[in-house]
Every structure is written in C-alpha cells, then in structure tokens.
C-alpha cells in the first residue's frame, strides 16, 4: 500500500485521500447498483441514521470513544436495521421506501433516547457522539486506506462471484426463487455488502453524503448501458473517477472532501441524464424537435399539393389561409421544403412543388390513404397472419399485394 501511494505523483496526504476516495467510489458505485436496481436507493440513508443507536450502545459498552468500537457498533446496528427493512418488506405490503423510512426514524429516535438518557448518567463524556456520524471527512490515515482496500476487495470479489444469482434476484425475485436460488441468503448478502460500503464511506464523505455516493455512479452509468455487467463496471469506474476528482479539487480548494465529491458525483449524473447518447434529455428533445419539423414539412407539402390542384400556385399567405395552419408554421414548413429541394418559390413569392416534391406528396397521400383504409378494411383483408402495419409505412410492412388491395378497397385510389 505504501508503495502504491508513493507511485501517485501527489503530495503524500493528497495521495492518501485520493486513493481512499477512489476505493470508496469503486465500492460504492458497484454495490450501490444493487440497491438502486432493487428500488432501495435510500437504504443507505436508513443505515446511516440507524448507526446512531449502535454508536450509543458501543459507547455504553466500552465507556470510551474508541473509533474502532464505535464503527463496529455502527456497522452492527446498520446490519440489524437492514435486516429489519428486508423483513418488513417481505412480511407486509409496505413498499420498500416506507420500510426504509420506518427503520430510519425509529432507530434514530432510539439513538436520541439512548444518548439523552446517557447524558444524565455519564455527564459530558458522551458529547459529540452523534457528530461522529455526520462529521466530515477527517484526515484519512494510511491505515484507514488499508482497511478500506481490504473491505473493498472483499465486497467486489463477492459481487463478481455472485453476479448471476444476484442479477436474477434483483430483476426477478420470483424467477430466482423457483430456480432454486437461496433468495433470503442472497438478500442478506446484498444487504451486508451495502453495510460494508457505507462503513467505508463513513470516514471519507460522512454518512448523509454517502447516500449520494451509492446512487450517483449507478444513476449515471445506467444512462449509458442496459447490461448488468457493463453497468457494474461503468458504475465502479464512475465512482472512482468522481472520488479522485472530488478529493483533488477539495484539496486544491481547501474545502472538505465529502461535499465536493458529492457535488462532482451530482454533476456526473446531470451530465449523463442530459447528454446520454440516445436517451438523455437533450437527445430526446432533439428527436422530438426533428419529428415535429418533419411532420410540419409533410403537412405543408400535402397542403401545397392540394392547393396546386385547386388553382394557381399559392403564396405562403394564401396557403396558410387555405390550409388553416398558422402562417408561421406554413413559412417554416415551406423553408424546410425548399431546403430539401421539394418546393421552390417564384420571383413573385408563389410556391410550387418540384418533381421530387410532387412524388413525395403523392407518397405521403398514398400512405395516409392506406392507413385510413387499413383502419377501415384491414379486418376484411384476410391476411394469412396477424400482421399489424407500421402507420408510417403501410406498403412496406404489409407488402405490395396487400397494399394494392387496400387501395382498391379505399375506392381505387381516391386521387
């Protein structure tokens, strides 16, 4: 470990913190996926709060503020809380978040009662116990990082070894049960992994901010992939990068590491949710805008074709009046048509279709007629199999024979 830290080209304390944050990010990212995918994202929140009575009991038992004992108490109480959450969920019809909320608030209340009860017995000795949970990343020591590395390695190894059964459990508990997997043991295992990840996070980012470290890498990675193994790897990588970037930024800005890491993680999620290829908000918005433009251009195309049949080539204003579309829409549609060479304007502003435009208009009209005919006569067509055509391409999806019969049924092609 010491050699590894020596390899990082950073001042020693920064290197220790960066390595710790990377370990935390990998573990939280991978293990967090298990919580997020089973809709128990906030289990970290509950475990963070339910550690309080554990800390109090550990303090009562040992009579001193020994970090290792307090951490062990926190972990035990967290495990008990987690088992209770799973039990409430399985034993009642309460949704996961209600079970999490009940355990969170009751355990925290219990912790407060224990602490205040303590305050009257033990004097000022117990002061600041609850700070231990919500305190910020203290200076990490190399020894802490070593412990974290061992815990992280164990957690990752367990996830890697149990990937298939865990995946089955997360996505289809019923299937996992009937295929003979020990679902209860697996659930306990997943819960224990979460507790391990949170214990790792306590010292680095603090309990509350740990909630985000479990969720954010998975939420960001989820936008980029649909496959479980890829998701786990991506989430681990995201977590590590976020941890290192956040820790280094915090060191440079003389700020506490925890909040900075969480803000970097939030930025990563925002980036993924906005810009993920093919599914991000910006992509969806662009797709919608393009679809609307195409729709508008096709509508104006058909209107123009109809207007040209009725009389002289119209101006934009006349076309708007005839078709009942807002003038701005007509102008926009005409501009798109002109851009794609489907229509052009004369010198006096009268619009007419080009040859490609006329063909496109006929195709559009035929496709509309076909769809209307399918809706009206589709059942009488007697197709050999139960085909359902694509509304935008009836001819392509039903085949020429059926399409011609549909056109005949529609009245020999109305136009």
């Amino acid at each position, binding site marked *: 470990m010491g050699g590894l830290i020596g390899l990082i080209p950073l001042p020693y304390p920064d290197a220790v913190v960066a390595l710790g944050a990377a370990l935390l990010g990998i573990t939280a990212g991978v293990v967090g996926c298990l919580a*997020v*995918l*089973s*809709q*128990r*994202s*906030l289990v970290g*929140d509950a475990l963070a709060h339910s550690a309080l009575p554990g800390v109090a009991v550990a303090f009562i038992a040992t009579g001193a503020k020994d970090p290792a004992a307090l951490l062990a108490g926190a972990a035990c109480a967290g495990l008990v809380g987690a088992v209770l959450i799973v039990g409430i969920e399985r*034993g*009642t*019809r*309460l*949704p996961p*978040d*209600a*079970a*999490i*909320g*009940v355990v*969170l*608030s*009751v355990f*925290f*209340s*219990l*912790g*407060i*009662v224990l602490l*205040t*009860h303590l305050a009257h017995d033990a004097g000022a000795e117990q002061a600041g116990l609850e700070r231990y949970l919500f305190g910020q990343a203290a200076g990490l020591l190399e020894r802490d990082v070593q412990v974290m590395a061992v815990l992280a390695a164990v957690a990752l190894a367990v996830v890697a070894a149990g990937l298939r059964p865990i995946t089955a*459990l*997360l*996505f*289809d*508990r*019923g*299937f996992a*049960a009937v295929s003979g997997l020990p679902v209860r043991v697996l659930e306990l295992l997943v819960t224990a992994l979460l507790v391990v990840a949170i214990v790792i996070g306590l010292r680095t980012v603090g309990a*509350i*901010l740990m*909630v*985000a470290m479990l*969720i954010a890498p*998975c*939420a960001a990675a*989820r*936008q980029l992939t649909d496959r479980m193994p890829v998701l786990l790897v991506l989430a681990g990588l995201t977590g590590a990068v976020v941890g290192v970037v956040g820790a280094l930024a915090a060191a440079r800005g003389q*700020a*506490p590491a*925890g*909040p*900075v890491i*969480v*803000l970097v993680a*939030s930025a990563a*999620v925002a980036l993924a*949710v906005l810009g*993920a290829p093919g599914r*991000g*908000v910006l992509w969806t918005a662009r797709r919608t805008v393009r679809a609307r433009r195409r729709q508008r251009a096709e509508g104006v195309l058909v209107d123009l074709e109809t207007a040209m049949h009725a009389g002289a080539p119209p101006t934009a204003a006349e076309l708007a009046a005839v078709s009942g579309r807002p003038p701005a829409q007509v102008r926009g549609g005409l501009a798109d048509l002109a851009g794609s060479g489907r229509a052009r304007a004369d010198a006096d502003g009268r619009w007419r279709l080009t040859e490609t435009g006329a063909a496109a208009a006929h195709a559009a009209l035929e496709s509309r007629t076909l769809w209307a005919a399918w809706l009206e006569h589709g059942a009488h067509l007697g197709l050999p199999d139960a085909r359902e055509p694509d509304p935008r391409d009836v001819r392509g999806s039903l085949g020429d024979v059926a399409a011609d019969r549909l056109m005949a049924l529609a009245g020999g092609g109305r136009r």
Partner: protein
Amino acid sequence: MSDHLVIVLTAGLVATACGLLGPFLVVRRIALMGDAVSHAVLPGIVAVFVLFGTRAPLPVILGAATLGVVCVLLVDALRGTGLVRQDAAIGLVFPMLFALGVLGVHRYAESAHIDLDATIYGEIAFAPFRVWEVGDLLLARSAVIMGAVVALNLMFVLLFWKELRSTSFDPDFARTAGFSPALVTRLLLVGVAVTAVTAFESVGAILVVTLLIVPAAAARLLVDRMAPLVMAAVAIGWASAIGGEAVATRLDASIAGSMGLVAGVLFLCALVAGPRGLVARAVARRRRPRPGPLLAAGAPGARPPRAGGGAD
C-alpha cells in the same frame, strides 16, 4: 396550561399535520420526502445568512422553505425525465443540496456557528417557554403556528381529496378523468415541504420525519381505504405524542426521541397483531389443512412469490 399539556398539544398538532399528508406519501412511495427536505434546507439557511447577515427565525424559515420547495420540485423534475426512479431521484437531490450547504457553511459561515440544530431545528421541550402574549392570554407559539399549518393541510386535503386519491393510485385514470397528476403531485410536495420546514422549527427534524412516515405506515397495515387510513394515521400520531411525553418524563430522555420510539412500538404492534399481522397469518396457516404435495404449488391461499425489484 401545564407544560406537559403544551408539549403534547404541539406534538399532536404536528402529528395531525403530518398524518394528513403522510398516507399519500406512503402510497405514492415517496415516504422519505420529509427526510430529504430536512437535509435539503441547509443551503437556504446559509444563503439567508450570507445575503442578509441574519439568523432571525422568520427569514431563516423563508430561506429554508424555499430550498425545501426547490428540493421537492427538483426530485419531481428528475423523476419526470423517466431516466431515474423516484427513490433514486430523492437520494440524488437532497445530498447534493446538503453538500452545497456544508460547503457554504465551510466557506462563509464557519465563524457564525451556523448549524441546523442551532438555527432551524427546534426542540419540543422549549415549546412551553416560547409564548406570545395576546392581552392577558399566553399562547404557545409553536402550537399556534402548527394549528395554522393543520388548518391549511386540512383544507388542502379536503379540497383536493378526489384528486389526491385518484392520482395516488391510478395517475392514468386521473388524467382521463380530467385531473392533472403532475399538478396535484407538485401541490402535495410543496405542502409537505412547507409543513416539514414549519414543523422543524417547532419540534425538530427527526420527530417530523418520523410522524410523516411511521403512523402512516402503521395505519397502512391496519386499514385499506384512504379516509380511514388518514384518520388512523392521525390517531396513531396522537397516541405517539401522548405516550412519548409520558415515556420521556419517566426516562428523563429526549421528548422527540421518545415520541418516535413510541410510534415505532405502535408500528410493531400493528405489524404483529394487525388484521394481516404475523399472529393473524400464523393462525390462518394453522387452521388451513395442509395441501398434499401435488396441490402445494397452486393451493388456495398459498402466497405467490412476490416479484422482485424489476417490476415498475
């Protein structure tokens, strides 16, 4: 009025305000919204301190309420993208805001000892000492404020009862029936944020978070219909307030913590002894004749395997 009475009354009013909204949060699977708000208010408090240099209650509450509303609306917007599930959205938004707040404290306000405990999280034990004098009358401030919140929530729930109920269980039906699920949800969330922040100031955060979730969850184990659910939640909340005050006096421990603990015990009672509780189920299992091996899988009443996480 005796001090105990004021404390019970204040806590009971908080329980009523929370019990009116909590059941809707539980059936909508956003029970943890109260906890999220309790952490998300920090940057609002810091911003008020940095911008106006004050820690007076009113501006601080306004700043906190603003951030509470920002928090719930951000969660709703993130969920609305369809890319992140509700629970993950909550867990992404409030730590981010909390982190902003912690950084703000670190940068601007470390010397001022801004701290959630000191600025906004009240302590219910002080409720009897914070009074308004109206003529000869001494009015407990927290009780009056919480009474107003109860009235507001009651009005909201009664006015929007149909909308709240239908959008909670079947948003698609609600939309076809002419309600706007998005609008009703946002109104409910804003109501929760405002209730929570106001109640934080009177009784502290953990009691509010507890009273939003635990009575509603316990009531959910006892009754099925929405109106009894709300009433049961309010009743369980009051029982926790009264019992918690007694326990706190006996143990000489935190009042809010004791009330939360009593609420937890009541939840446990519902879990064990409720109509679908562990006892009732064990009895039913014993009475039912054991199915033969062939029938085992499809026997009437055999619990079907519950779908795991994947189902939406």
